[in-house]
């Protein structure tokens, strides 16, 4: 299970990196969200995959899965949700003001 998941995480990171390196702002944002999924999976795997019941009261399981990685992922998801939303709004504004979503054309020192 860990091996398959590691490969999947690698694939997600590769796709994300490829997308971040493209010129279009929208693809860059999609790239960051693909990477964020890779990161969340990584945290889950690093905490150890399922070793017992879910950590809930009232379940008579002998052993429980470590709940900390899940709590970390929840927090990480919320934060990446917020940053992605902010990044989207920001690039939309930049597209409106600068008239382009091509990072190649955003270079240079004009507008200063």
């Amino acid at each position, binding site marked *: 299970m860990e091996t398959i998941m590691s490969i999947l995480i690698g694939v997600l990171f590769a796709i994300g990196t490829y997308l971040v390196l493209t010129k279009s702002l929208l693809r860059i944002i999609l790239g960051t969200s693909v990477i964020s999924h890779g990161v969340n999976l990584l945290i889950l795997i690093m*905490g150890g995959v399922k070793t017992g019941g879910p950590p809930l009261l009232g379940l008579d399981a002998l052993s429980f899965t470590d709940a*900390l990685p899940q709590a970390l992922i929840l*927090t990480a998801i919320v*934060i990446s949700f917020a*940053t992605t939303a*902010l990044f989207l709004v920001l690039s939309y504004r930049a597209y409106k003001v600068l008239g382009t979503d091509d*990072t190649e054309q955003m270079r240079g020192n004009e*507008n200063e």
Partner: protein
Amino acid sequence: MNNLVIMPILIPLITGLLMVAFRRKAVVQRFLSVVALGATGAVSLVLMVQIKDSGIQTLQLGGWEAPFGVSMVADMFSGMLLLTTSIVSLLCLVFAFYSIGKEREAHYFYPLYLFLITGVNGSFLTGDMFNLFVCFEVMLISSYVLISLGGTGIQLRESIKYVLINILSSFLFLVAIAYLYAATGTLNMAHLSERVAEAGQNGILTAIAILFLIVFSLKAGLFLFFWLPGSYSAPPTAIAAIFAALLTKVGIYSIIRIFTLIFYHEPHITHLIIGIMAAVTMLLGAIGAVAYWDIKKILTYNVIVGVGLIMAGLASNSTVGLTGSMYYLIHDIIIKALIFLIGGTVITLAGTSKLKYISGLIQTYPFLGWMFFIAALSLAGIPPLSGFIGKVFITEGTFEAGFLWLGAIGLITSLMVLYSVMKIFLNGFWGDSYLDEEKKGEVKGILFPLAILTLLTIGLGVGAEGIYSYAELAIESLMNPLLYIEAVFGRG
């Protein structure tokens, strides 16, 4: 248990939230933010006294004992940084009253400013790796909005780079945390320190340490600073000043914290890498500062030189070097705020940031000119100003550790820094005045925070002996991780 530890986070947070929930007039918001930052400063002062009297103060959130809960830890190092942060942020805020403009005030400038301080204070106080990430994000998300607030073309262009680079480094941060959790099974810093010491810092842990170093270097502008000059010259003066004063310092604080508390077992690998990065950072930063003829660019490259110098003190891994780093860190927070505020004022008054088109400002604005002169000397480390004492200790530390090249680069770049700021002074303030009398801008209110900051840099230099007892305590807790661990686990 000491609930005062959480207060520097809670006070600005609650004040900022109240401002968003009940949108009041700008005057009320100004008053509230001054009160909040003043109260934060007072709390940090009380905390410092408590730490001095009865050791490191801790708080286990929700009563969950370490290492299971989130610990907040205030040792003298964080206490001193908290106090400096409160003072400098208060002064930058007063500067913002006169310069930020109605438009930005209406778009939640003050709440965002307070959230930024919340994140900074949180990063200084937390004793948990993941909580450090959360505090970083609080600070960064506020800074994303602050840097793009107003929405001019250049701001949007630079903010996109800034946001992207920080989002990616946040992902790296999470990756590093995941590896660390897999390798050690804990995220509480004190517990981490214990476990790493027990297991010995093997290759995997050193690799994780380097990953953390990369993450924090991206935030601190240590070697990986390519994003910094652009982003710090885009926003308005008050915001740029608080960024230059605080944001990189949080990264520096984190590097110092984890490499003195957790990963201190392999200094010939990690600290050497830090030393090399510091040397390259200083050199490149100084070259940038000398080469440009644009006030904003010169000042932002000076931020980079400062980061390199502070890290050189850490690289020496000695008491003297760390003492120097701490003095210089506090000096750097004050002086970067001061010099950015003066530089911004000059640009506003002259209407351009190109040095070639500015001259003779000192005839119209003598106070501004002489304050810049003092700031420039302090930045370069001329005694008796505050930059001197830190630089002496850092150089001594690097020589002691055998890093002669590092100390030498630190001294050479100091000269280059002096040249770069004197270039501003000679071209901008000296020479024939070209401003007409009627074009003279109003600087009265602005001068007040600048004067206080100037007094602080003189006071910190002359009175360095006075805060030495505090500095000694701070360095003691940095050099001896056992003090920190015992305080967190309540065994002390």
